[in-house]
């Protein structure tokens, strides 16, 4: 399959102009920053808390924003126009993810800055965050494709936010509620695992496991997205 940079850029530029005028969506991007400010006031933050805010940034911006953007394209019947144009599946998905990626990276970086959390010397964590970013964006894309409107998307996204965005907080309750154990496998917890392991000086012989788990999430959501997208090309 060919990839046209020109068509990718056309969609990216369109979204950039569009988002600039969309207050509802751009204001949610500020939410993680509020958490970052609150937590940084508490004083010395444990690593787990940093990872909570980072994961929340990825989920709230990456998944929610992406989901809302895609759901709006569906609601307004503009996605069908793109599908009928020469743009291919990859160009449309990549183009539509680009703006979200940029904003997610900015918001995550700013919340790290607010929390005084440095990435230097944390190469593994950076790799983990980037891999998770693909998962969160793909999850948002898929959710946008299965919902019919922005309002519907905002409802469906809530449980997803709790599971994938706040797992790092709820996992603390796993001693009382054993069913919460499954949250162990969310990318957020795996990111924490990566941070802890690399902090302790572990090598790839131990680190491969959290990476493999996040990688599996990436594969599953990408496949779901591609399959659902193909379905949405038809009535």
């Amino acid at each position, binding site marked *: 399959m060919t990839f046209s940079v*020109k068509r990718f850029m056309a969609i990216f530029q369109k979204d950039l102009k569009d988002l600039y005028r*969309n207050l509802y969506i751009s204001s949610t991007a500020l939410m993680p920053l509020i958490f970052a400010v609150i937590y940084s006031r508490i004083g010395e933050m444990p690593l787990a808390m940093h990872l909570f805010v980072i994961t929340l940034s990825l989920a709230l911006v990456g998944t929610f924003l992406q989901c809302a953007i895609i759901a709006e394209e569906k609601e*307004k*019947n503009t996605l069908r126009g*793109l599908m*009928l144009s*020469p743009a291919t599946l990859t160009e449309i998905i990549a183009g539509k993810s680009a703006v979200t990626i940029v904003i997610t990276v900015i918001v995550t970086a700013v919340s790290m800055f607010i929390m005084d959390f440095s990435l230097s010397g944390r190469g593994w964590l950076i790799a983990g965050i980037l891999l998770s970013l693909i998962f969160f964006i793909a999850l948002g894309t898929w959710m946008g494709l299965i919902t019919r409107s922005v309002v519907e998307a905002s409802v469906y996204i809530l449980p997803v936010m709790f599971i994938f965005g706040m797992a790092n907080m709820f996992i603390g309750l796993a001693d009382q509620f054993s069913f919460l154990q499954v949250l162990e496998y969310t990318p957020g917890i795996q990111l924490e695992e990566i941070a802890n392991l690399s902090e302790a000086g572990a090598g790839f012989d131990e680190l491969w496991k959290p990476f493999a788990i996040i990688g599996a999430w990436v594969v599953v959501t990408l496949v779901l997205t591609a399959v659902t997208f193909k379905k949405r090309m*038809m*009535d």
Partner: protein
Amino acid sequence: MIEVKSLEKIFGDKQALHDVSFQVKKGETFGFLGPSGSGKTTTIKILTGQMRQSSGTANVFGVPVSKLNTSEYRKRFGVVTDNSGLYARLTIYDNLKLYADLYGTSLQRIDEALESVNLDSEKKTQVAKLSKGMTQRVLLARALLHKPELLFLDEPTSALDPANSKHIHNGLKELNRQGTTIFLTTHDMEEADHLCSQVAFLNKGVVQLLDEPKQLKKQYREEIIGIELKDGRELELPLKASSAEEIQQYISREMVERIYTKEPTLGDIFVEVTGRELV
């Protein structure tokens, strides 16, 4: 350009298309006429790959519609249906610019396309602020931006006032002259008569008649001469030698206001063929 044979579409327990067959040749403006619910939009969706037929064949550009989902084929057609949308927060120009880039056409075409739908003075206007008719015109401009070989239009002028309809008709005629084949659905018989080189009557999912408008009108012409007299009476006489004397008398006594032949409209013919009004 388009070959459709025994096309059928079934939605659950409802059959939208029963037996649709027709051909559209290069250079034609083909009118697909039918009342609401007759299956016009369904046919366009099948032809543009937005829906699968239940059975029968549909070829566009000589290939089955299921194979049309490549960038190369998509560049060759344009489409406006009732489920086409625009980006409401963006201006008309920005909406069209996206599509100019996607189709790889020059930005100069944006102005030309807007001119042909009479919107060249509005290009900086935000789409959210447009009326329904203006929105429809922007969609049309978007579909003809890349001068497609084949243009599918689902009721292109249904929301437009007569002046803008006329402007768009002229634009479509010009586009057709430049080589674009047009497939349009409408329930406006005058529009069909004015634009189309071929028309098909679709009724309840079946193509009941297919011909040139001129031929149809000839075929269904009533062999009658109408005479309106100055005293207000109206007479209808058979178009035969036996009427000649009577008509001559009216004329020689200077009683005649006007004389006319009864040309059926496409709408009249539709009613006669299908027994249904075109609403």
